[in-house]
C-alpha cells in the first residue's frame, strides 16, 4: 500500500491546481427568456433580439440608464434645421471584419431600414428621407417632416450601424452572419439553445473585461431561477413575481429592479355602444378598484399608472396626479346621466393567455357584477387574439404597450392616434391627433412639456382605456458579478461587467 502514497499525493496536488485555475472566470453566462429571431438589427422588433444586437452593434447615439443621451458612433451632432441633423462620425472605428466605419455604412444602414427588409421597424424609420454623405466622417440626416422623437429613436435597435459590404455579401443569410462595430463579435449561435459572442479586441471604446459572452434561452421562469441559484448562469432575466422572493432570500444573489416604461390597460372599443359614450367609460373606470387589483395580482411589483405616459418617461405627469380611487356612487351617477342601466350591459373581456391578465380580468368581472354588469372572460392564444382585435368587433380587452424609445410620443401615438395599426380601441379624435403632431414638431423644452401635460390630462378625461399596471424590469444577478445595471428599456448591456476576485 505504501508505494501508492506518492501517486495519491500527486493526484491530490493535480486536483488542487486544476481547481484553482477556475478562479479567473472569463465567461459571462446569461439566461434570457427567448432566442433572438435574427441578428439583423432591422429584421425584428422584439426584446431578446434587441438585446443580442446591442452586443454586436453600436448606435450613433447611446442611451444612459437615466434616459439621457450621449455620443456613440457619432462623436457630435448638430440640428441644422428642424429636420436636418448633421452628425460627425468617430474616426478609427473598426468593424469586426477589419473594415473602418465610414459615412457610407451609416447611410446604408439607416436607408436600409426603409426597404422591405425593415418592415418591422418602419414606424421608427419612415420619416427619414435620405442620408447625405458630406465626407467620409460626416453625414446629414434629412427628414421628410419635422419629427423630434425620430432622433431619440436612433438608440433603438434599428439605429444599429451595419457594415455595407458584409450585408451585401451575405444577402438573405445576413441574420446569421452579423458584422458590427460593437464590443462583442459573433462566434456561434445554436438556435433555440444559446449564442456565444467573443470580446472584440479592436473595439473603439472601453473593451469588455471578460472574453466570452454566452446567452442561453430558457423560456421557463422557474428554470431561469434554478440555473441562477445553482450558479450555471450569472445573470437571469426577466424575473417573474413568483420567483422574486426566492432570489431575494438567497444570500448569493441580488435583485435589480427598475420601473419599465410599459403600460397594461383595459381598452374599450370606443366605436361600439355603450362604450362610445364617454360617461359609460368614466363610470366603468370609477367602478374598478385598479389600485388594489394591481396589488393583488402583482404583489408588490410595479404600480397602477395614473397617466398613459409611464412615470419613467420624460414629460410624464404620473407622479403629480392623485391615485385612482374606487367610487361606486359616482359610477352609478354617471350611468344614470348617460341613460344606461348597468344591469342591461353584457360584455366580453378579452385577453391573451398571460396569467396576470386573466387574474386581473377575473377581479374586474367581479367588480363589474356589483352594479349588475354581466361579463364573460375570453382567453385566446396570441395569434388568434391579435387577429380578432384587428377586426374591431370586441367590447373590452386587456393588452400591454411598451416603449423601446425614450420619447413620450411613442407612448401615446401607437395606441390612440387615428388609424395607427395598434390602435385597438378605435379611438379617433382630431384634437388628440393635433396635439400629437404638435408634440412631434417641438424641440425638447418647456413648450413641449406643456403639450404633453395637456395631452395626458385630456386622455385621462376621455378614458379610451383603464390603466392597470406599470411593469418593472427585473434581473437576478449573482453577487460576484459587478458593474451590471438593469436597463430601463430592457436592452441590458454587459459592456462594464466584471467578476469580483
Amino acid at each position, binding site marked *: 500500500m505504501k508505494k501508492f502514497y506518492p501517486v495519491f499525493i500527486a493526484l491530490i496536488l493535480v486536483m488542487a491546481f486544476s481547481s484553482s485555475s477556475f478562479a479567473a472566470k472569463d465567461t459571462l453566462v446569461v439566461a434570457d427568456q427567448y432566442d433572438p429571431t435574427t441578428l439583423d438589427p432591422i429584421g425584428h422588433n422584439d426584446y431578446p433580439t434587441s438585446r443580442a444586437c446591442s452586443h454586436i452593434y453600436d448606435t450613433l447615439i447611446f442611451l444612459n440608464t437615466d434616459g439621457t443621451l450621449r455620443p456613440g458612433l457619432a462623436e457630435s451632432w448638430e440640428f441644422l434645421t428642424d429636420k436636418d441633423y448633421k452628425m460627425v462620425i468617430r474616426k478609427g472605428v473598426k468593424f469586426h471584419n477589419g473594415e473602418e466605419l465610414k459615412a457610407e455604412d451609416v447611410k446604408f444602414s439607416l436607408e436600409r431600414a426603409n426597404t422591405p427588409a425593415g418592415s418591422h421597424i418602419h414606424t421608427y424609420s419612415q420619416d427619414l428621407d435620405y442620408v447625405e454623405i458630406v465626407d467620409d466622417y460626416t453625414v446629414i440626416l434629412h427628414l421628410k417632416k419635422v419629427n423630434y422623437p425620430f432622433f431619440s429613436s436612433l438608440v433603438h435597435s434599428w439605429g444599429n450601424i451595419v457594415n455595407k459590404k458584409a450585408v451585401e455579401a451575405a444577402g438573405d443569410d445576413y441574420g446569421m452572419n452579423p458584422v458590427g462595430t460593437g464590443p462583442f463579435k459573433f462566434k456561434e449561435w445554436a438556435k433555440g439553445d444559446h449564442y456565444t459572442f467573443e470580446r472584440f479586441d479592436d473595439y473603439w471604446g472601453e473593451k469588455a473585461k471578460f472574453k466570452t459572452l454566452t446567452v*442561453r434561452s430558457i423560456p421557463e421562469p422557474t428554470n431561469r431561477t434554478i440555473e441562477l441559484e445553482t450558479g450555471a448562469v450569472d445573470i437571469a432575466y426577466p424575473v417573474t413575481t413568483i420567483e422574486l422572493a426566492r432570489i431575494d432570500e438567497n444570500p448569493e444573489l441580488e435583485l435589480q429592479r427598475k420601473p419599465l416604461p410599459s403600460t397594461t390597460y383595459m381598452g374599450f372599443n370606443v366605436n361600439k355602444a355603450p362604450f362610445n359614450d364617454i360617461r359609460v367609460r368614466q363610470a366603468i373606470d370609477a367602478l374598478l378598484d385598479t389600485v388594489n387589483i394591481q396589488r393583488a395580482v402583482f404583489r408588490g411589483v410595479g404600480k397602477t399608472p395614473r397617466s398613459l405616459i409611464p412615470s419613467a418617461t420624460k414629460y410624464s405627469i404620473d407622479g403629480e396626479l392623485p391615485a385612482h380611487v374606487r367610487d361606486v356612487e359616482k359610477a352609478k351617477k354617471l350611468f344614470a346621466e348617460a341613460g344606461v342601466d348597468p344591469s342591461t350591459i353584457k360584455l366580453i373581456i378579452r385577453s391573451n393567455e398571460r396569467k396576470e391578465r386573466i387574474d386581473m380580468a377575473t377581479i374586474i368581472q367581479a367588480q363589474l357584477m356589483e352594479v349588475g354588469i354581466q361579463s364573460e372572460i375570453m382567453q385566446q392564444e396570441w*395569434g388568434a387574439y*391579435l387577429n380578432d382585435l384587428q377586426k374591431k368587433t370586441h367590447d373590452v380587452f386587456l393588452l400591454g404597450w411598451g416603449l423601446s424609445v425614450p420619447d413620450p410620443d411613442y407612448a401615446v401615438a401607437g395606441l390612440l392616434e387615428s388609424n395607427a395599426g*395598434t390602435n385597438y380601441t378605435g379611438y379617433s379624435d382630431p384634437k388628440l391627433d393635433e396635439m400629437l403632431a404638435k408634440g412631434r414638431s417641438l424641440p425638447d423644452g418647456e413648450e413641449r412639456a406643456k403639450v404633453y401635460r395637456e395631452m395626458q390630462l385630456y386622455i385621462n378625461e376621455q378614458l379610451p382605456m383603464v390603466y392597470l399596471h406599470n411593469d418593472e424590469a427585473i434581473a437576478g444577478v449573482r453577487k460576484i458579478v459587478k458593474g451590471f445595471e438593469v436597463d430601463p428599456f430592457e436592452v441590458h448591456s454587459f459592456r462594464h461587467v466584471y467578476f469580483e476576485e
Partner: protein
Amino acid sequence: MLKYIFRRILMLIPVLLGVAFCVFTLLYFTPGDPARMVLGDLATDEAIKEFRDKEGLNDPFLVQFGNYIYKAVVKGDIGRSYSSKRPVMQEILTAFPYTLKLSAFAMIIAILIGIPCGIISAIKQYSWFDTITMIFAMIGLSMPVFWLGLLLILFFAVRLRWLPSSGFSTFKAMILPSVALAAQSISMVTRMTRSSMLEVIRADYIRTARAKGQKESIVIGVHALRNALIPVVTLCGLQFGQLLSGAILTESIFAVPGVGRLMVNAIMSRDYPMVQGGVLFIAITFSIVNLLVDLLYAYIDPRIKAELK
C-alpha cells in the same frame, strides 16, 4: 427484399401528400394572420399587403397548396422560414440532431431497463420484484412527462444540485430530459416484455427444452427470449418513432432546442412554411423508422423473412 423496400417507399408518397394536405387545411383555418405575426403589430398596412402578396397568402387555398407541392416535388424546395428567413430544411436539420439524441438516449434507457426487468418479472411471476416492478411501471405509465420533468428538476437540480435543469449541450444536461422522456417507454417495454415472456414460457417447446435437460439460462435467454422479443421490437420501433415526433413537452420543459420546440414556436408565430416542413419531416421520419422495424423482423424472425421474399 429490395422490391419490398421499394414498394414501401412508394407507399410513402400518398401518405405524405395526405399529411401535407391535412396540415395545409388546418393552418388555413387557424385564426391569426401570419403577415401580422411575422412583421409585428407595428407593421404598416402596405408592408402587410406586400408580405401577403410575396408569400402568395392571398391566393385561393388550392392554388397555395398546388404551388407548395409543385415547389417541393419539382425543386425540392420547401420554402424559407417567415421569421428567421433561413431555408426550412436547414432549420430542421440543425434542430433534428438534438431530438435524435434525446430520443435515442431515452430509447436506450428504456431498453436497458425495460427488457431485463420484464424478463425477471416474468420468470419470477408474483414475486416481490414482480410486484414492485409492476407498480413502478404503472406509475411511470400514468405520470405525465411535464410533471415528472418538474419533479426531476426539483430533486436533482434544485435540491441535490447534481445535474443542470435545462439545456442540452453537455452529457450531464442530457440525463434529466432523457430519463423524463424514457419513463413511459420503460414502463411499456417492461410490461410488454413481461407479458410476452409469460406467454412463451408456457409454450410446449420451452417444456421440451427443459425436458431434454437444457441449461435454464439458455432456455430463457435463447429459446424463450428470441420468440418473446418480436412484439417488444414492434413496440420499441413505434415508441422510437413517437419519441422522435413527440418530445415536444420534454423539449419545452428542459429547453432542448429540438424539432418539437422549433415546431411549437413556429405554430405560435404562424410560421407556415416551418410548420408544414416540420410536420412533413416528422411524418417521413416516422415512416422510415417503421420501415426499419419491419425490416428488422426479418433478422429476428426467419418466418417473416420467408414471407418477404
